[in-house]
């Protein structure tokens, strides 16, 4: 009985690992977290289901979906909402010192391709620098820019563009 339970846990973690392993550099980034998708927390601590430490899901749950910060058009400054989100991320990284993240910088489609690559890099670095300022070791935070190549919101309107001007922190496995 106990053994079977342990197997189930192993299987669960293997699934999680497999899911993470699929985030090879060439793959598209994971779908954006949706605020509504947070599963109801289990009332007791005795059933260890749910995401494992070291997984993207665990990170997103722990920071309450604040692994994404947003920017104004052509800007890369960290506003107060971004600062709060990055503080939550920094606390998580302080608690789990073995975890490393990549900050993915993105731009909306209303920019030229090459400029947006540079802009995404600038946004990712703004987020990284803020995390480092909060005590996260710089070697634990990588950056990558996708420019306008990987939108999450598909419309061509202000609302979609606002969602796409973002920096997403992703756990590295």
């Amino acid at each position: 009985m106990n053994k079977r339970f342990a197997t189930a846990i192993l299987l669960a973690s293997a699934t999680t690992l497999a899911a993470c392993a699929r985030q090879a550099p060439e793959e598209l980034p994971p779908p954006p977290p949706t605020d509504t998708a947070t599963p109801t927390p289990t009332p007791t601590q005795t059933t260890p289901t749910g995401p494992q430490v070291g997984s993207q899901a665990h990170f997103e749950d722990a920071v309450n979906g604040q692994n994404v910060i947003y920017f104004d058009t052509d800007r890369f400054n960290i506003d107060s909402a971004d600062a709060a989100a990055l503080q939550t991320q920094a606390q998580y990284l302080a608690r789990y010192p073995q975890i490393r993240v990549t900050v993915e910088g993105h731009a909306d489609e209303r920019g030229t391709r090459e400029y947006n690559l540079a802009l995404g890099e600038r946004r990712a670095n703004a987020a990284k620098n803020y995390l480092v300022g909060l005590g996260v070791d710089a070697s634990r935070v990588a950056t990558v820019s996708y420019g306008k190549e990987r939108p999450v919101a598909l419309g061509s309107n202000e609302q979609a563009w606002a969602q796409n001007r973002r920096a997403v922190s992703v756990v590295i496995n």
Partner: protein
Amino acid sequence: MKKFVFALAFLAAPLAAQAQDLGQPAPEGGEVQTTGTEASGEDAEGGLTFTVTDESDWADLSIAIPGFAADRNVETPANSLGTAELGREVARVITANLQNNGLFQPIGPDRLPLPSFAEITDPTWGNWRGRGAEMLVHGYVRARSDGRLVVGCYLYDVALQDELVREGWVVPPADWRRAAHKCSDIIYARLTGESPFFDSRIAYIAETGPKDRRVKRLAIMDSDGANHRFLTLGSATALTPRYSPDYSQLLYLSYVDGNPRLYVYDIGTGQQTLVTQSSNPTFAPRWSPDGRTILYSMAVAGNTDIYSVPASGGRSTRLTDTPGIDIGGSYSPDGRQIVFESDRSGSQQCYIMNADGTGQRRISFHGGRCATPEWSPRGDQIAFTRIAGDFNIAVMSPNGRNLRVLTSGWQDEGPTWAPNGRIIQFFRTERNTGRSALWQVDLTGRNERRLPTPVDASDPAWGPILP
């Protein structure tokens, strides 16, 4: 241990990655020789005078292009039906070329009688005058004993009953279309007084899939869309290709190791190498006109600047050093100056500097933003993406004056010049769907058309006249 494994994986990545996204190499075809037939004695400056920026409408200049004659029908690898049918096919390619730039009214071989081999140098004028043709193109296709093809091309003025120009080429059978493009080029050059451009190729990015999971592959094709080839497989995003001036290599950006990095891809061998050994992201690759220098942009701690490096390898030189984004760059034809884009003033604007980075000065002061500047191969104009609400293709003088907006799409970006500096290609993105296509426009802004590509397309880069 873990750290060690990570380091190994990191080192191995670029090597393994190269194998992952490149298709089979396919070396380019053989050389094209100009042969026997001399141009007529007439001065090239004579005849019609005309430029594409002229306001007059030349689209009614009718040119009859009957099938090219074959002395006898011979089997050729170029066409399953032999040289006679190939002669008609050559005329069709020329007809499509001259049709598509909006300057002429070509009448193709499918609507005309086929002249005899003897008539190629001795046209039956009455036949063509009766059809209302002002210009007449004749030509022949002959298979040599070594399997190569000889293609002759003659342009006649029907009213004057006179030969304007003639030329001949020896081509490997696989390159028969190049003879058709060369014939199109001498006709275009003779009638307009402009430089040729048809015998050239285009590199671009082929796009498929939904907007949030777009697959972007490196692809190349002839100037008319023929001989299309995909060079990468699509597992890694490829962007912003540029042909080397001799067409032997392509510069482009690939995410093949997970990060945006620039590669030099050798078309003959299918091998590629990094433009610069650096862990920093690199963007916006460009060749100098002589192919000896590569410009690239690199972000260090988030700040992007422009660098140059010898194409043969060696040390990079940093050309810009502002805290803003400095990116891209396009050399003047003499290689002495570079026009580039910078947001150092607060928004994207166009600047010029000397090739060594000195003398940086802003040239765009016409409202809106100035992005992706490209110096015309003639040196007289700079094309750019003008952002003023919508994104449009515009041109200006190198001093920033004489702004003219040529297109009116929702998002037109990334201009690239035809080898003769008279036509501009760009890509147009559709609102909402994100679908994109290649378009071209002449300098009047009136002759605009979409280029057919097998799938959606972006980032066109037009190479020079083929060597």
